[in-house]
């Protein structure tokens, strides 16, 4: 049997995403943990996931920290733990110093516009910029001055969901498998 889908016979196909941009794609899922070994044991023995320590460039945490960030493959992955086959999301995991982080999408935003401009559009539509680290360990003030693989902003949507936004550095070559778009 082929891949099971949610809508095997929809009335229409999704729209074409023709922009040379990954703006809005929900790339990974953000998940947090309290106990490293206990969490790994669950991921490995229940779901069969595979993981590496998130490089410092993407986590801000030095290698070897007792509470590492993790990139978790839930299906086939590229060498840098991006997914390699369509249809599944990998995880961006971090340690929760307080209560667990709200699960939410690690969502890419426009890499060709200033971060502040993108965030302003979102707040003008009713989103809120989260700066309180007790609400999200990933919360931080806006800083568009550095190339970074870390999340750039945590946004609360009008219903209370958290979106972890990331602006890709200019190093993207558009040769990466995940950068394909509709023509």
């Amino acid at each position, binding site marked *: 049997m082929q891949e099971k889908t949610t809508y095997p016979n929809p009335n229409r196909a999704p729209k074409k*995403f023709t922009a040379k941009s990954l703006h809005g794609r929900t790339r990974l899922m953000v998940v947090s943990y309290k106990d490293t070994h206990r969490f790994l044991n669950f991921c490995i023995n229940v779901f069969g996931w595979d993981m590496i320590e998130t490089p410092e460039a993407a986590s801000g945490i030095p290698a070897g920290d007792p509470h590492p960030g993790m990139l978790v493959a839930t*299906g086939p992955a*590229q*060498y840098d733990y991006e997914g390699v086959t369509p249809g599944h999301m990998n*995880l961006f995991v971090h340690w929760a110093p307080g209560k667990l982080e709200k699960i939410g999408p690690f969502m890419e935003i426009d890499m060709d516009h200033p971060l502040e401009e993108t965030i302003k*559009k979102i707040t003008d539509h009713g989103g809120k910029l989260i700066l309180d680290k007790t609400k999200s360990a990933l919360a931080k003030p806006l800083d568009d001055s550095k190339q970074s693989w870390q999340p750039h902003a945590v946004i609360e949507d009008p219903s209370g*969901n958290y979106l972890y936004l990331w602006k890709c550095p200019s190093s993207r070559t558009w040769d990466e498998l995940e950068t394909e778009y509709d023509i």
Partner: protein
Amino acid sequence: MKKVYTCYACGFPMAFEETEVPASCPGCGAPRSQFLEEPWLGSIDKRRIHVDPPKADPNRDPFDLSFHPAKDFIPQKGDGRVRRWVMYYKKGTAGETRSFYEDLFGWDILDVEGTDNENPVMYCATGPGTPDWEPRVCSFGYGFLVPFEDNGEVPEPSMVVEVKNIDETVKKALECGGKLIREKFVFLGDTYAEIRDSEGNPYYLWELPDNVPDYCIHGVANTGAQ
């Protein structure tokens, strides 16, 4: 001057101005001293340095978090894949919610048949898809926006994990410190259950016993480094 830098440790190629080169590889964390560099000739395709990524070791310790290529997932036949995200919206705000995500992020949103017309479950395409609404490109996903009664408590967002057998997965989850939140139930003709992991994170389990991902039939063509 812009150059192409290829990490010798993992094979990750990147293009940077010399002044903006990161101190360590964003793919594997190897130090800058591990980068091989060459001139930028206008396209990453024109680079001449190609590094083979290390091969996966099936005997490695799965608890070892040091950099390694991800394991071969073909034998799992899709078991354990995170297929969807689930977020919630307040009942009575379907229009505003749709506008927030369509206008700001360019999503395409479909009302799920058979759900409340006023407060539908919404299925969201966040990037290129197939005619039957599956992501067509790797490394991103689709998800659901589900209505909730706004009584001050916002439901916890979650994600949907494909499994071959819910009973077996729940048994393993309980053995590893997880909890069963909701027994098996049927939605859109498929069987689901809800669990929490050892830390308290919520997950939906989606039972797809006969599902075989395309990559199990045709193999994984490449890992990106080529």
